[in-house]
């Protein structure tokens, strides 16, 4: 599997991975999260564990078990950490701890490095036996509900280190706090190269014509993704350039508003034959890949965003991306170089027109975007960072480590 990244990932990353693999040979690396399938964390772990093992590290992935009550509580914790006002009572925290305690009895926590993903299994730290314990937070913690964040911090402070996705998500909790961006896997179904036949298959399935440039946004039907703003921008563009809009998203089972938003979008689109609203079933990775590869311009017009990896996905396919200047999007789009950062519907419309009218500029930006993703947002870089952090914790106090 590791060999598949040769010629794709930066040489230095692959080399460093092999060297760290030698340094950490036969050492054990345990990952714990709360779901085996669904969501970005599970998706990356499925790919990461075999690569780590191939590098000579004894990597193991365990999933904590909980009942619906537990996940109800952790959903509240999750929402509160993202800024929603939620009441997480002492009893709920006690239950959260109790479920963690039960899992600690079932799961072997013996390892040289233990990476705990997100708040659900965070209390496992209370059952630490040995090794370096690292808490990996994938959540936007820039504006958390203070009481919930403080309670969780009691656990976090007992870890050897924490990892956040963006600098502004880091908290001042008195332990080493590292910043590691999420990543995409270039050889996964969502990002691998496709044949023309495979692309045709998707377009035939959805009956989308390919005779005009396609403007695409891939996202859940969520108001924070501003689908109505995208349609408004498209209507402005249509006055000048003949094009097609595709809004594609999967239904999110954890989002009760999803259906309402989808209906609003359909109503607003008003049966416009040039607007295609696709509600994709789960595991539509190949279709998303085909749509991204065929689009002339990709939008991520979010008003609020965690990291927004769909931006990197599109950039990896050589597309210029127009994105809202929120969350992790400005870390991915270099304004004017790999795409445009926008702050309004008008901005989105103007930048779409610019790209449609300047295919050369569009291609140039797309190429730069792909190289930017190659250097910064591929899975091999993320694994490199995890191993580097583990290794640095074993060389504590050193700012420069020579291998």
């Amino acid at each position, binding site marked *: 599997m590791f060999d598949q990244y040769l010629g794709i990932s*930066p*040489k*230095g*990353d692959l*080399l*460093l991975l092999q*060297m760290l693999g030698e340094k950490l040979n036969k050492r054990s690396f345990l990952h714990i999260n709360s779901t085996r399938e669904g969501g970005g964390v599970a998706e990356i772990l499925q790919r990461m564990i075999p690569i780590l093992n191939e590098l000579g590290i004894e990597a193991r992935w365990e999933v904590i078990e909980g009942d619906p009550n537990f996940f109800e509580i952790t959903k509240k914790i999750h929402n509160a950490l993202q800024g929603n006002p939620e009441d997480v009572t002492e009893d709920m925290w006690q239950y959260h701890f109790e479920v963690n305690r039960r899992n600690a009895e079932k799961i072997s926590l013996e390892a040289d490095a233990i990476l705990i993903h997100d708040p659900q299994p965070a209390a496992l730290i209370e059952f630490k036996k040995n090794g370096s314990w690292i808490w990996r937070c994938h959540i936007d913690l*820039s*504006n958390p509900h203070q009481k919930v964040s403080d309670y969780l911090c009691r656990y976090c402070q007992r870890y050897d280190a924490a990892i*956040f996705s963006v*600098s*502004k998500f*880091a*908290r*001042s*909790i008195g332990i*080493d*706090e*590292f*910043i*590691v961006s999420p990543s995409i896997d270039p050889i996964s179904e969502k990002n691998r190269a496709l044949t023309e036949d495979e692309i045709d298959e998707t377009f035939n399935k959805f009956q989308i014509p390919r005779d005009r440039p396609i403007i695409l946004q891939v996202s859940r039907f969520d108001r924070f993704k501003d689908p109505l703003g995208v349609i408004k921008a498209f209507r402005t563009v249509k006055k000048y350039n003949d094009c097609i809009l595709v809004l594609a998203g999967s239904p999110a089972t954890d989002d009760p508003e999803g259906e309402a938003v989808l209906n609003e979008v359909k109503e607003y689109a008003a049966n416009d034959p040039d607007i295609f609203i696709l509600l994709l079933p789960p595991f539509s990775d190949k279709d998303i890949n085909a749509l991204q590869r065929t689009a002339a311009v990709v939008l991520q017009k979010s008003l609020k965003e965690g990291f927004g990896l769909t931006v990197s996905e599109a950039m990896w396919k050589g597309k210029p991306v127009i994105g809202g200047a929120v969350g992790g999007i400005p870390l991915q789009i*270099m304004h*004017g*170089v790999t795409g445009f950062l926008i702050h309004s519907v008008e901005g989105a419309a103007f930048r779409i027109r610019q790209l449609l009218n300047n295919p050369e500029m569009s291609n140039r930006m797309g190429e730069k975007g792909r190289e*930017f993703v190659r*250097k*910064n947002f591929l899975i091999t870089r993320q694994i*490199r*960072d995890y191993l*580097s*952090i583990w*290794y*640095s914790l074993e060389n504590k106090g*050193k*700012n*420069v*480590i*020579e*291998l």
Partner: protein
Amino acid sequence: MAEIIEPFEFKQCTSIIKSTGKKAKDLPELTDIIAVISDECIFHHTYQYFLKGHILEYTNDFAQWAGESLEESALAEHLSNIDPYEFRNINDLREKIIAVIDEYLKIFPEPRKAIPGEEFYFNETVTLIFPVGIRVKNLAEFLTAIKFVDTGSVYYHFYEARIRLGGGVDDFSRWIEDVFEKKELAEKIRAIDPLMHNIEGIREHLLEAVEEEVRKDMEVIDRCLTSI
């Protein structure tokens, strides 16, 4: 007996970012923190700016924040004009940054605050240095290697070396001068302004300079052969 040539061994560095947990929402807070934050943090936001592959609108993170988040373009210009390689140590650089901001605040005492989420986040790094497995013994091999290595390797030998070795000299020109006594080529490489290019730009200038030298050497050989 053949002369023993000291080979050039290519290395590379990679940094992992570490948060200090400190942030500033306006210029007075920024200078207060700059005054006390670790040397590693100042180093990261100035010297390591070029490792991040930015577009070259600014030359350090402080300037970039002033220009983009505070929209204080004049201050961004002043800060971009600071050459970190002019300073003997981090503290002198730290004082210069504070002086430039203080001077600006005398003229514009109430600049805007950053909107929430756009604050300046103070980070530092842990740097890992590793050999990339390439050793070269002559300029032609060097030329091939420069084309091949990652940007992290060019950064290590061109930027990081100036601090590591002191004296503001990069590894490449030092090797070329020490081993081949090609002073003119070494000077040409030293004349590449590190603040005015991104790493790919530095790579292009290096290639151009070394390629010209290799071509000249080949022409000399060619002339010698013709005269035989």
